[in-house]
């Protein structure tokens, strides 16, 4: 009986690693809406993110880079600038970086 030369993959299965960058790039895209309910959720999320982006671009509350949205909201509150309450509620219910960090989160400094 001839013995086949054993390969390292016989004892250790080949595991394909997913590329790191690929996942990251996909995340900002919203998942494709399959059901009607999910589509509704997606538009709600879009809406919320739009409000948050509007908050980022409101110059009265100061620069938004480098700090989280909640920090920026708290600063505005501290200095009596009356930031909208709904923004804070949004930020406290979601911990996803897409929510908590500002529009320019992908740009270092």
């Amino acid at each position, binding site marked *: 009986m001839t013995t086949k030369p054993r390969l390292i993959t016989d004892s250790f299965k080949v595991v394909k690693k997913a590329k790191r960058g690929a996942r990251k790039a996909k995340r900002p895209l919203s998942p494709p809406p399959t059901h009607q309910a999910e589509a509704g959720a997606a538009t709600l999320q879009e809406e919320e993110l739009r409000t948050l982006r509007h908050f980022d671009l409101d*110059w*009265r509350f100061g*620069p938004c880079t*480098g*700090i989280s949205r909640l*920090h920026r909201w708290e600063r505005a509150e501290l*200095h009596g*600038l009356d930031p909208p309450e709904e923004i804070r509620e949004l930020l406290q219910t979601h911990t996803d970086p897409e929510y908590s960090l500002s529009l320019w989160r992908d740009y*270092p*400094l």
Partner: protein
Amino acid sequence: MFSELSAQKEGSSLLCRPSEDQGPVFDRMSLAYSPCSERYTVGERSFSRQYAHIYAARLMQMRPLLSERAKQKWGSDVLIRKLCDLQTGEQCCIVGTLFKRMDLQPSILKEISEEHNLLPQPARVKFISETDELILEDELQRIKLEGNIYRDKCVTGSVIAIYGAEKNDGKFTVEDFCMADLPPQSPRPTLSSDRFVLLVSGLGLGSTHADSMLGLQLLVDMVTGQLGDQGEQSGAATISRVLLVGNLLSQNTQDADAATKPKYLTKKTQAGSVEAIRLLDEMLLQLVASVPVDVMPGQYDPTNFTLPQQALHRCMFPLSSVYPTLQLVTNPHQSHIDGVRFLGTSGQNVCDIQRYSSMDDHLEILEDTLRLRHLAPTAPDTLGCYPFYQKDPFILEECPHVYFSGMAPTFQSKLVKGPDGQECLLVTIPDFNSTQTACLVNLRTLTCEPISFSAFSADEDEDSEMNVSH
């Protein structure tokens, strides 16, 4: 005055025969003390933020104050505009942050871009020039200023209100301007007896010439009551606290060679600051055994460079840190001593303004920062500063009773009165290493006098009121 207090006892003199029994014991007054420097301690150290936040927070904090001042000064119906709503020719008031564009200001970008035909520049003491321009910025825009505003006296980063109109050429003609002026002050308690706080700056340990060591030892002996006769000893007992205001180590302890020399050459050499810190520890040990001491770091001390400088680490003082009387504090330091509010820095802020404005007098600059209601307006532009974002801790929210700064060339002091009856004693503390002079602040009368320990100085008859060595 301290000198009178020390000399009041006549009967007991060093020239009399030593008495058999134990001499009198003078108890040192211990005063209520509460540090309130929390605002100057930096918890998280994140340096990934831009400095835009600190300017934004500064303007946010100062705008309501300045709007109020502007209304007081130019009438309650004065028109306060943002720069974006500005109409040409309309008389109005604008609140904003000053920016002085200076040709001579050192800039790393300029140095890099002109690297190939770089002319060696002489070392400068001042960076102002005739071509400087004053610009006022608010949240969105900036405008060039001209007219009734003294360009060379202003520094970048100060928040002021200006009154005037925009001309056709796009420049704003300033008719008048106002600063935030002194913040509100809590009343000072009336004290029944004289009690003193000793302020010393720039001990300069580890310097190459050791001629300040005698003066320093005299200072320590005087405070601990080992000097003079009973009169002087009872006087020393009224010194209830000592504040060491920065630059405990000399500039010489920071050898630049260590960074540039190869490692194998510097392996066996010891940093100059190690020996100096040991010396400081021994000196502190003598002091803290007898009197509470606050130690503030300064420009050349082994702590972080950026303001607010954090307290020196306890492990550097193995001998003296076991005493509860040793307080290691931050660089802008604020505390209540017997109800009297002390606030001050080791002088980096004042020296920086001196470089970037026409003002030379430390006392004048100190008063200016008080009127601007900002400890260090030039931070973060030309003075290192932690990137704060929530609020600017250097804005003065409460007026101190004693406002000091170290590293001054000479001793000066002045009582400043505010519009709402505030009283603030300004003190510039001279460099002890070169002048051998410390300052004594009387908490009861809110006055200050210098005390000199120079043994062999050439100008002996100068304003030193008490020359202990004689």
